[in-house]
């Protein structure tokens, strides 16, 4: 059993997450799409760990999960702070630095 189907699935989900980040306007949904991309890369790492018969890929996936947890905590706190000051969770409304 080869790892190719798993890696292809991971590529498809990564692409969907990518398109979601580019098209969605709601900051929370954009964040969910980032999580989708991280999960897709995790799937590829675990699939390759099995393909090559050593556990380094699983360790890498574990570290990705830890970093994702930290990133979610800080990111959601930022979204909360922006919402508190601007009353909006849209990524287009936080554009004051442009002017």
């Amino acid at each position, binding site marked *: *059993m*080869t*790892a*190719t*189907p*798993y890696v292809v*699935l991971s*590529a498809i*989900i990564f*692409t*969907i997450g*990518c*398109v*979601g980040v*580019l*098209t*969605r*306007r*709601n*900051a*929370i*949904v954009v*964040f*969910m*799409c980032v*999580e*989708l991309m991280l*999960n897709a890369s*995790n*799937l590829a790492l*675990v699939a390759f*760990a*099995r*393909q*090559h*018969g050593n*556990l*380094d890929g*699983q*360790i890498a*996936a*574990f*570290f990705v*999960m*830890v*970093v*994702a*947890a*930290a*990133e*979610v*905590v*800080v990111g*959601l*706190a930022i979204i*909360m702070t922006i*919402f508190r000051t601007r009353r909006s*969770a*849209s990524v*287009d409304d936080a554009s004051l630095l442009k002017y």
Partner: protein
Amino acid sequence: MTAFWILAPIMVIAALGILFVRKAVHAALLLAVVMMSLAVLYLVLQAPFLFAVQIIVYTGAILMLFLFVVMLVGVDASDSVVETIRGQRILAILAGLVLGLVLVTGLGQITLGTAVGLDNANSGGNIQALADILFSRYVFAFETTSALLITAALGAMVLAHRERLGPKPTQADLAHQRVRDYAEKGLHLGPLPPPGVFARHNSVDTPALLPDGTAAEASISRVLAARGTVRSAPELADDIETVQRRLEAFGDDTARGRGSAPASTEKDAE
């Protein structure tokens, strides 16, 4: 492979659903579907530890955090359909399709061969083997992770903390403020009208009616107004005629029935 061919379409459909659903809560639930399926795939790929961590950390902790923030923020956060940059959506979808095609065809070009499998590496137990590697070769990265987690926790606390600039207003202060507003700006002194007053329904989504028949905006919760689930007063008045006609028909029926069986219709009319 059976688990894979069952779960892969579910995962792709749920992931596509995240792109198209309007509400953030639905996106979070679809994300939960993807993550649970992913956990099962980890089990198939001989990673029982990551299976447990995926469910506990991702579906348990991170998604709950998402749902909490959706609860605090998401009510007013409707996704706008208007594009800020013209043609950006089309270009993004095109770029995504190109990326997907490149990745999938690139993966199609290579042959990975049969998987070695983790039976050998997992012989002493998956968790023991992972711990061996984690605390020997990756021990420095592991220790750095602790610094990252502490920084993240502190950062979240600093970002979410709100400094109280003045003393907290007591109930007496609020009462004084209310009377002062009434004296200076002529604001209404009494409590807000409850929903459904003088209206035909008394549910919370029905606005109170003012004497001239218009809806009182202050009687409806701001959250319900933002969700757009408030029933409009004219709409409620629409079916008055239907109800009247039904009542008249009912009255006719009872009037006709009264001649034949007066004893029973008395009870029916009530």
